[in-house]
C-alpha cells in the first residue's frame, strides 16, 4: 500500500518563486493535514481539511494556500516563496479520528528558499 505520498522530497526555490507540494493518499481518509517543522522545533499546522471541498487554517497559514477537490489529494501552494518558508513540510492523513495515533505521514519535503 502506498499510504501517503508526498512530492517532491527536496526543493530549492528562489525568493518570489512559487511551487506546489503534492500530497495524495490512497486510504480514503477524510482528514488531511499540512505541517511544517523548522529546525529543532515541533510541528506547526499550516492547513487542514476534514473532507473534500473543506479546508481550514491552522496555526501558521500565511503565505500558503490549499485546495481539496478530491478525497485523495491535498496540495499545498506557496505563491511567493520567502526565506521564512525554509522548512521541512509533512503531509498527513487520518480516517475517523484526529488523533495522531491514527495519522499517517508522508516522508516529508525539505524546502529551502534562497
Amino acid at each position, binding site marked *: 500500500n502506498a499510504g501517503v505520498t508526498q512530492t517532491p522530497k527536496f526543493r530549492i526555490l528562489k525568493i518570489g518563486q512559487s511551487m506546489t507540494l503534492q500530497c495524495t493518499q490512497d486510504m480514503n481518509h477524510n482528514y488531511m*493535514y499540512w505541517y511544517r517543522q523548522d529546525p*529543532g*522545533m*515541533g*510541528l*506547526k*499546522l499550516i492547513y*487542514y481539511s*476534514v473532507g473534500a471541498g473543506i479546508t481550514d487554517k*491552522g*496555526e501558521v497559514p500565511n503565505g500558503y494556500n490549499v485546495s481539496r477537490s478530491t478525497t485523495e489529494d491535498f496540495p499545498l501552494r506557496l505563491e511567493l516563496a520567502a526565506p521564512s518558508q525554509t522548512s521541512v513540510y*509533512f503531509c*498527513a492523513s487520518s480516517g475517523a479520528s*484526529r*488523533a*495522531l*495515533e491514527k495519522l499517517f*505521514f*508522508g*516522508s*516529508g519535503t525539505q524546502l529551502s528558499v534562497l
Partner: protein
Amino acid sequence: EDKVVQSPLSLVVHEGDTVTLNCSYEVTNFRSLLWYKQEKKAPTFLFMLTSSGIEKKSGRLSSILDKKELFSILNITATQTGDSAIYLCAVEDSGNTPLVFGKGTRLSVIA
C-alpha cells in the same frame, strides 16, 4: 500563549542515565495527550494518555498524565544512543480543532 509547553527544550545525557521530559498543557476540553519520537523523518507514535495516574509503559519508556495539574511526563530509563531524537508532546481537545504540538525536547544521548 503556548498551549503545550515542553521542557527542557534540549537535553544531553550519557548512556545509562534516566531522563524525564515534561509537557504541560492548557486546553478547553481535554481529550488526550500524545507523545511522539521523531528521529530523521516523520514522528512515530509512542503513547496516548487519556486518564490521570495510569502509567503507560513500553520497554524503557513510560509516561503518565496528571489531569488535575495539567501535565505529563515521559521517562526513559537506561538511555541508549538510539534514544537520541526530538520528543514531541501533542494535546487533543474534544472540539473540532486539530492537535496542538509543543516545541519538542531534543534529547542527545552520548556514549
